[in-house]
């Protein structure tokens, strides 16, 4: 999952970004409102964590512009303003959720997960495809009763495919959602990780879940 963190207080921004990266998110970071809008328009983020008061454009202006341009990217406001009007204003402009500073990092994580799931129309934290179960909160994966150990990147890839299960997901989409701007990856890295996932999830089972659509991408589903 790829997240944009836009917050002008540098140490706060960096701490959030580090925490999210350690949770397996690809994170882009900016301290400036104008840059944040540019990033949000250029990249397909799964979630934008947005400070309200920033130099350049305010968080409110950014959300307004995003929604006007038809972007449905989920937006979580981080705000030092805690009056009801301020909160309502953010939500009315098209934000999906807000968090008042100071907050607990665990709550930020839970809300980021929740709005990403909702963005993919998966309200439950458990994702199920046949006998494959993914607990997105605990980041635990099971096939049948068998727990499967995945690296952070493998987990992120599986979660992304699971959130879009049944749909064909292209390589570039996967690449865009799993890697931030600073990742310098080789072009076949997605195929490599799909290989890893297949060996861990599908190898010992007759019912294969990860399918290749030649020339289009991959799909995670019960039916081939």
């Amino acid at each position, binding site marked *: 999952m790829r997240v944009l963190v836009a917050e002008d207080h540098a140490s706060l921004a960096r*701490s959030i970004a580090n925490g999210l990266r*350690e949770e397996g998110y690809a994170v882009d970071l900016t301290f400036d409102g104008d840059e944040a809008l540019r990033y949000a328009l250029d990249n397909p983020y799964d979630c934008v964590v947005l400070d309200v008061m920033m130099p350049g454009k305010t968080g409110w202006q950014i959300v307004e512009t995003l929604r006007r341009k038809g972007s449905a990217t989920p937006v979580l406001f981080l705000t030092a303003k805690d009056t009801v009007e301020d909160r309502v204003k953010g939500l009315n402009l098209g934000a999906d959720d807000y968090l008042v500073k100071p907050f607990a990092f665990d709550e930020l994580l839970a809300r980021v997960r929740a709005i990403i799931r909702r963005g993919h129309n998966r309200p439950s934290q458990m994702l199920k495809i046949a006998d494959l179960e993914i607990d997105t909160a605990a980041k635990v994966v099971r096939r049948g009763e068998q727990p499967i150990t995945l690296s952070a990147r493998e987990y992120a890839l599986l979660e992304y495919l699971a959130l879009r299960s049944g749909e064909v997901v292209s390589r570039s989409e996967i690449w865009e959602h799993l890697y931030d701007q600073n990742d310098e990856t080789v072009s076949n890295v997605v195929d490599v990780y799909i290989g890893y996932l297949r060996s861990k999830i599908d190898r010992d089972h007759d019912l294969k879940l990860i399918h290749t659509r030649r020339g289009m991408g991959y799909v995670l589903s019960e039916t081939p």
Partner: protein
Amino acid sequence: MTRWIAWAILFAVWATLVAGGSVAYFITRAALLSDLDKSIIMLARDAPQVIGRPEYRQVEEEPTEATILIDDKPGARPQLLKPFLKPDVFPVVADSHFVEQGGGQRYRQLTLLFQPRESSSLMSDLRLLSANPATAIQGLVNDASPMKMVYNYPADHFDQFMDRLMIALVIFCGVAGIVAALLAVPLSRAALRPLRQTAETLREIDERRLDRRIDVEALPSELQPVADRLNQMLGRLDLAFAQRKQFLADASHELRTPVAALVTTIEVALRRPREAADYLRTLKIALSDARLLRQLVQTLLEHARNEAVPESAEPFDAVALLNQCADVAEGLAATRNVTVVRDLPPHLEVHSYPKRIRGIVMNLMGNAVEHNRSGGTVEVHCETHERDLEIIVSDTGPGIDPEHLPHIFQPFYRAKRQEEPEDTRQHLGLGLFLVDSHIKALGGECRIESQVGKGTSFHVRVPQAVVAEPQVVEAVV
């Protein structure tokens, strides 16, 4: 208050009624009496009943008709005559009063003195109606001595009229008094209604509803100036309160972010075991946020102290104080390759608040050093204008954009940052706010001259405190 006004109305009405009634009664009585007396005099002139010469003080028991009884000699039998007074003879009223005679019948009794003039007779041509004209009349009419006449006239009519007037007045005053008593309370209520409404409005005003005002138009004109002043006071309170609320909101807003940063940094660091170097890095980041918080809290406390009761003014050497500030600024300036220039007289004795002056100068010089170019200068200058102390702090920094000038004294105001975010963390946007808060407390003003690209100078002018005269207490022996 209502009761007092009611009583006041009542007393005023009652007093007016009693006084007015009495005046009306006595004026009417005097007028009627004078009329009565005049008609008695006319009667007396036309048909006097002369009781006798002054030496005969004999009052006729019951005068019946206009006759003149003249005693010629003591003991002689009076004769009946029709006398004629000379037309220019008018009597002087020697005495007038009411008398009671025979069975409580009241009379108006006038004692009239007919004074003969120029030794002539009172009587004109005598037409003797007496059967015996030869006797005493001649002597009387030729007599130039004054004639005294006592005339009684029945007072029934007069008394009856005065009684009726009295009854009418008493009834009228009584009714009017009762009506006044009945109206007094509602009237006083009505008179006090605007005041009551004003009080109601005032009661509803608290710190959340300072925008309410007294309806001046609804008040009687005497109360309008009071209400105007109250409204003006409310306006000032409203503004001050709004500013304070804004400041508190801004301050709490500014506190939230560093607290969030501190908490998040530590929480993220504690999510998993890390290397010592990572912890060290985390601690350093946390420390910088903690320092920012400390600075914020110190500034807020300083501002809170500024608003508290000021310390007393004292005489001090402004130049010595400015030199101390310049020394501190020089320490900071040296690390940034900035020179501090002191354009100061040897001494300048002033009477003011040294802590506040220091607060102003330290903040201005600190800003001047920080917002300066390498190799630039910060100049401090001071002088007195009349009784005002003027301090000028100039820098050779980038200057202030005219767009930002009106806002730089607002708390937490920061011009759009061009620098790196880390750098701006040192600037809370409270330094100039504190300067402004000190200058306002001293009753002074600050003028800013700024040229973009060349530099800025702050001209602070504060009046010196009035030297308190020793109080003279006059003893009253």
